[in-house]
């Protein structure tokens, strides 16, 4: 930082411009310290997925590139970079290129408000949960635009399915968040975590257990992961909305999907599993740094995403829509009313705080 400050002063920039450069460059450095580990985590999540599913199917998984296959994600990235990007003749060229960018932009930008530890957050804003909800909604545009712009029937079908599925589960997700807000009384993710401080009994997973289930299931559906992956549906519509994408444009979609998995895992950990708080606030549990607890919880939920993929067969489309509209939404509605009634009509309201 001092180097940049000294440089701007030496060039003789005006005072206001110097402070602009100062805040801008320090923010950029912070953003890089979030983005680079995130990208690495995404790369190694794909490796973890292939290895884990391999072991679950009694195979070894990738083991050729580097020791025990540890360089596999790097090799994949390099390979994809040198693959031709195909622009189909009938495609809308501009929309076709813009779609993957629209899906990775929000997947990364959502991390601006994630608190990693007490005070360790890039932007501690009061509307952070609203911001997260807004950005995860923008992600669906990438899918729709990709399917539409490709002008291919498989892509179109995949995009229609996935758009309807994502908007359906977003309602259940939003209702589940309303329950969290009622318990915490704040939209600020930092305050939501602080409200759960103490032992694991203070985490929101207990009073909000139905909402926790709904939120995590909706999260799996929002990211188009198995068993809700009809948007890709390899065996019926080949690859769904990104069937026409190749090379780096495909890689960007892929990265966005895995970044979203990590994001959903993080949000679940923050809102229902006490974020960075240790499981028990006594030694030796609180000797472990807080951020390690958060990372552990994220890894725990991310593992579920991979486990689901290895375990569950794909839902049929009407079953997906029925689960979203007829089971998850009523469950959340009922639980919101139960919470409100308990807070105002019975003496047991404290249970939900």
């Amino acid at each position, binding site marked *: 930082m001092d180097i940049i400050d000294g440089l701007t002063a030496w060039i003789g920039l005006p005072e206001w411009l110097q402070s602009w450069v100062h805040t801008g460059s320090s923010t950029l450095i912070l953003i890089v310290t979030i983005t680079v580990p995130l990208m690495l985590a995404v790369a190694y999540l794909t490796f973890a997925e292939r290895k884990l599913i391999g072991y679950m199917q009694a195979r070894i998984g990738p083991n050729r590139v580097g020791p025990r296959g540890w360089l596999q994600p790097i090799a994949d990235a390099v390979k994809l970079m040198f693959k031709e990007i195909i622009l189909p003749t009938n495609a809308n060229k501009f929309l076709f290129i813009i779609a993957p960018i629209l899906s990775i932009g929000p997947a990364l930008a959502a991390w601006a408000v994630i608190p990693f530890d007490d005070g360790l957050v890039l932007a501690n*804003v009061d509307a952070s949960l609203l911001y997260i909800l807004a950005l995860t909604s923008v992600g669906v545009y990438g899918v729709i635009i990709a399917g539409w712009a490709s002008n291919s029937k498989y892509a179109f079908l995949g995009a229609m399915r996935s758009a309807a599925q994502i908007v359906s589960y977003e309602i259940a997700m939003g209702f589940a968040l309303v329950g969290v807000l009622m318990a915490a009384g704040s939209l600020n993710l930092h305050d939501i975590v602080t409200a759960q401080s103490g032992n694991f009994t203070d985490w929101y997973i207990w009073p909000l257990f139905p909402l926790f289930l709904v939120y995590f299931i909706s999260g799996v559906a929002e990211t188009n992961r198995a068993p809700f992956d009809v948007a890709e549906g390899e065996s019926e519509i080949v690859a769904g909305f990104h069937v026409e994408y190749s090379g780096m444009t495909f890689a960007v979609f892929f990265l966005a999907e895995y970044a979203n998995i990590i994001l959903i895992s993080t949000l679940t950990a923050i809102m229902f599993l006490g974020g960075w708080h240790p499981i028990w606030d006594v030694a030796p549990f609180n000797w472990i740094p807080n951020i390690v607890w958060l990372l552990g919880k994220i890894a725990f939920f991310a593992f579920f995403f991979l486990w689901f993929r290895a375990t569950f067969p794909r839902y049929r489309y009407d079953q997906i829509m029925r689960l979203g509209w007829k089971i998850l939404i009523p469950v959340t509605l009922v639980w919101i009313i139960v919470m409100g009634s308990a807070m105002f009509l019975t003496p047991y309201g404290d249970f939900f705080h």
Partner: protein
Amino acid sequence: MLENYLPILIFIIVGVLVGVVMVAMGAMMAPNRPDSEKLSPYECGFESFEDTRMKFDVRYYLVAILFIIFDLEIAFLFPWAVALEEIGMFGFLAMMLFLGILIIGFVYEWKKGALEWE
């Protein structure tokens, strides 16, 4: 207060830039040898029959319309849930009335079969 949102704006720009840079790098590094077969839309080994922008199931529209209604309701619920302590009993009863009306609508659309996919 508002300057807290500046990092968010920068992060959005960086996020989009990451996508742009990656696609641009792919476009520069990769070979580009198009031919008419390669560029035709993928359709299990034969020429595509008709244009993709054809008629599609009206139920997708229905889901979109229902989504707008319910999403608006969530937009109402968010500030209500945050301010629950201050607005007290009156706020609670008002929202229960609102939810009641909405649940009637939900039951109606359920009975009408708007949520059926066969």
